[in-house]
């Protein structure tokens, strides 16, 4: 294969697919997958150069969903940006809220009451369960099992979203956490409903695993496909189930102990091979661990205030300084970096999205694979375009 001839000096050249020339007879086929490909979870384009069925080059093109999130955050008040964080990763608005609240709380040195910490953990783990369930559902659907596993996942997700709605008022755009606590105090009835849902979750994971884990087609399609080496994963800054699927023991809940995660007993599942199957398995096992955390947390939710009495809603002006708050979101490390200059809105606001950074190794995983597996590998990264493009 000759070196790609990409540059022609044209100003718009950066957005053009690279030109390859095949070795020997024939030429490379360039396929533009997306932006409206059903497997892309939104609007995302992959410019794939194919030699027969084999991928020789893959170039991700994104930005179709760019909404100027960071600039909006800088022109909003600190509170005003909270609902916008819901819209980053719209599957996991609760964890997004938490990460942002954590960053601002670090910035102003705000304490959080015990009860709010427990509620946050419960909501974050519920989010993780529903995110992993639907991520697996989408992954299997992209494999060709149209519907069934996804519908099983969504049936369970529905119960969790109903809990979110009865607590925060909205199913997906929760906008629930505040600097120094949470917005609404959950009623005992809500906690009972949560206990009931959590009690049903292990059965769901068992059913899900019976349906999928030993399925020969799934194994044939996923084992040995899209291998991500641990050294590459670490160097590229990959986090979340992708990194753990490659066998690197790194979970911010264990490393950083934000919130009250040091009080719960849970294991960090790790993969051996770093292929798509390992990522699938890590997600299933993480769901089980999350259910364990939920059971522990729901046992000991303390009484007390949900908001810190010193927390301010109006007239919120942090002192000049900077802070970085990060959590283990379902998709990886989600961080918010804030610089304050003492005004009501941040001087600089930056999001470290797990989806975007996990996507950077897509080409490395896809090279040499069949084009049908590109969809699968892409699905195993588990991204949400709202977070990639911001």
């Amino acid at each position, binding site marked *: 294969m000759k070196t790609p001839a990409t540059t022609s000096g044209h100003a718009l050249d950066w957005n053009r697919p690279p030109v390859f020339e095949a070795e020997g007879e024939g030429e490379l086929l360039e396929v533009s997958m997306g932006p409206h490909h059903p497997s892309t979870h939104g609007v995302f384009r992959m410019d794939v150069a194919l030699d027969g069925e084999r991928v020789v080059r893959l170039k991700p093109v994104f930005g179709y969903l760019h909404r100027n999130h960071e600039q909006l955050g800088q022109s909003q008040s600190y509170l005003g940006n909270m609902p916008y964080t819901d819209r980053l990763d719209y599957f996991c608005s609760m964890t997004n809220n938490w990460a942002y609240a954590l960053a601002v709380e670090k910035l102003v040195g705000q304490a959080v009451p015990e009860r709010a910490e427990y509620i946050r953990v419960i909501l974050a783990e519920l989010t993780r369960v529903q995110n992993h369930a639907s991520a697996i559902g989408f992954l299997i659907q992209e494999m060709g099992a149209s519907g069934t596993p996804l519908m099983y996942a969504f049936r369970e997700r529905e119960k969790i979203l109903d809990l979110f709605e*009865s607590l925060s008022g909205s199913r997906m*755009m929760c906008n629930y956490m505040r600097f120094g606590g949470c917005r609404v105090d959950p009623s005992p009835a809500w906690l009972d409903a949560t206990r009931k849902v959590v009690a049903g979750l292990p059965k769901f994971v068992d059913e899900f695993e019976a349906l*999928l884990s030993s399925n020969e087609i799934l194994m044939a399609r996923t084992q040995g496909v899209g291998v991500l080496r641990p050294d590459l994963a670490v160097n590229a800054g990959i986090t979340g189930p992708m990194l753990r699927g490659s066998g690197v023991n790194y979970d911010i809940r264990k490393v950083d102990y934000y919130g009250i995660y040091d009080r719960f007993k849970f294991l960090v599942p790790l993969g051996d091979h770093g292929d798509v199957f390992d990522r699938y398995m890590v997600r299933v096992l993480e769901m089980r661990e999350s259910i364990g955390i939920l059971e522990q947390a729901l046992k000991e939710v303390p009484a007390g205030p949900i908001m810190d009495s010193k927390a301010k809603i109006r007239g919120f002006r942090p002192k000049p300084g900077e802070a970085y708050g990060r959590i283990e979101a379902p998709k990886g490390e989600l961080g918010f970096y804030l610089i304050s200059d003492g005004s009501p809105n941040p001087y600089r606001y930056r999001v470290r999205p797990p989806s975007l950074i996990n996507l950077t190794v897509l080409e490395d995983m896809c090279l040499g694979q069949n084009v049908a597996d590109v969809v699968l590998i892409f699905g195993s990264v588990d991204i949400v375009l709202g977070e990639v493009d911001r």
Partner: protein
Amino acid sequence: MLGEGILKGLAETAKNFAGSFVSKERLTTVEYPEERLPLPEASRNFPFLVYDGPDWEKGLRCVACQICEKECPPKCIYIEKSKDKKPDFVGKPQIYPAKFDIDISVCMSCQICVEVCPFEAIKMDNEFELSTVDRFGGLLLDRQQLAKSNEYYHKVHPTEATQVDARLAEEKAKAEAKAKADAAAKAKAAADAAAKAAAAPPKAPEGGTGTPTSAAAKPRDTEPQPAAPTKPSDPAKAASQSEPKGEPRKEGGD
């Protein structure tokens, strides 16, 4: 055996399929337009303005302070202040919104306007079937379309509305008590001034319910009577503070 896993999975789906005929729990979907699930109480969609009493225009709680307009993240609220004033729920004359528009095609249902409102005037509705053929005018709600009665608020968010009512009643009681105390103080001050002007019995009256002079009786007619007995110490203190001024500074609590 090859294919065992597939059979196991098929058994699972078969169980679910057969179960859906016998178990209500396995039927998880709802035929939407005919069948509707009840919305949870906390559910929110777009904001509305609360009014008390029968007349929406007179009863609006909003005083056009424009805090929600300022705090609204997507800036979908537009308020114009009125030039004149009208009494609010505690009877204090307040500015009211001459114009209050919400563009619900921009609104993102974040509830921040509700959180920052100090007057409990704006609340979240849970009406969600709002489709319209008019893309611009149909989604720009003016203050008449936004105004919903307090009874409606009780219907959509019962517990929250009860709490809000309790809080407002408490505030109102406090305001009334304060107004009464102020009124009594003014009456006292007026009485004192009148007594002084009427060239002085040798001892000025202290702390009591006032001397039965004709000048003192006149303002007391308009004030509610039981104020002075319930809080005997406050009027006296307030009276001693406002004594040098002589005249009451502003209108009292009616």
